[in-house]
């Protein structure tokens, strides 16, 4: 029995089954707080805690599914290519928007945590939270943040964007597909993008573009701010 749990089969079937049910529930109810990614993550964590199964046992299968994220990011070239004309028409607003977003992310994340009494290391760990995981980890390492905390916050940030990104954008009158895609992709990287792709193809394409652009902008801005202010 215990041997079966440590084979990759366990992590794969647990993830697939949980996500399948979570998506069914989401489609039936249409309730945005029941975002399938968020619900699946919470359900699997509760299940593992209750059954006292090690994260490592789950991860042997989980990491195989996580691995497919790589080619999926490459596949984001597809919607970008299909919507190239609409995107190129707005290339300047897109570039300026991402840079403004990257700067506001660094300042607002570190600023809010600092105001609420966060320790130096925690404040630094929050700096790259809007950037896709591999870039965020690299930045956190470089500036002296707690790398695992950064990785956890990247996921949390993604879930926030996926759960309420489109609704929040409509609320604050961001209606255009390109603006909404850029906003959610810049704020909440791939997890937000996955939700946007379901809503609108053009917004999803721009959101995918924003993952790369924001990663680049943040990777350049952080050392620059470090040099200017020497925090």
């Amino acid at each position, binding site marked *: 029995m215990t041997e079966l749990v440590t084979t990759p089969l366990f992590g794969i079937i647990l993830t697939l089954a949980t996500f399948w049910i979570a998506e069914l529930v989401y489609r039936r109810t249409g309730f945005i707080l029941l975002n399938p990614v968020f619900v699946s993550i919470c359900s699997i964590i509760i299940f593992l805690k209750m059954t006292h199964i090690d994260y490592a046992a*789950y991860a042997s299968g*989980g990491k195989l599914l996580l691995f497919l994220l790589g080619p999926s990011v490459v596949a984001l*070239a597809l919607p970008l290519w299909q919507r190239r004309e609409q995107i190129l028409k707005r290339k300047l607003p897109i570039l300026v928007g991402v840079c403004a977003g990257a700067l506001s992310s660094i300042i607002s994340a570190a600023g*809010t945590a600092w105001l609420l009494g966060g320790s130096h290391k925690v404040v630094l760990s929050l700096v790259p939270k809007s950037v896709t995981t591999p870039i965020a980890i690299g930045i956190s390492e470089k500036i002296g943040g707690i790398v695992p905390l950064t990785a956890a916050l990247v996921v949390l940030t993604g879930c926030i964007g996926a759960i309420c990104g489109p609704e929040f954008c409509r609320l604050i009158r961001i209606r255009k597909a390109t603006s909404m895609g850029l906003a959610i992709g810049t704020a909440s990287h*791939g997890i937000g993008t996955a939700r946007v*792709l379901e809503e609108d193809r053009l917004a999803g394409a721009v959101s995918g573009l924003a993952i790369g652009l924001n990663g680049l902008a943040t990777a350049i801005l952080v050392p620059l701010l470090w040099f200017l202010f020497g925090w």
Partner: protein
Amino acid sequence: MLQGLVLLFGFQFIGELLSHLFALPIPGNVIGMALMLVALTSGIVKEESISEAGELLLKYMALFFVPAGVGVMLYFDLIAREWLPIIVGTVVSTFVVMAVTGWTEQLLGGADD
């Protein structure tokens, strides 16, 4: 389908290789996406050859994030220690970024296409 998978994994591999060789701060899959875009633009790769595999991966992209999220359980202690600045900082900043980015793009791009 197979041809598409070969191309998608192949471009990721080239991206990882470039990221590693030049010690770039950008992950290999993002470089792979940029290269794929160049390949589609220049006609080296035809849209039809990657569309079947690509659409399938895009459809289930959300699922692939779940295992990464479950990893959060390893750091509950860390988050519990300073939960207020961590949680509030993350939530507030995420909404600020969406507003700043979306409004900037919308303002500069005009109301209509």
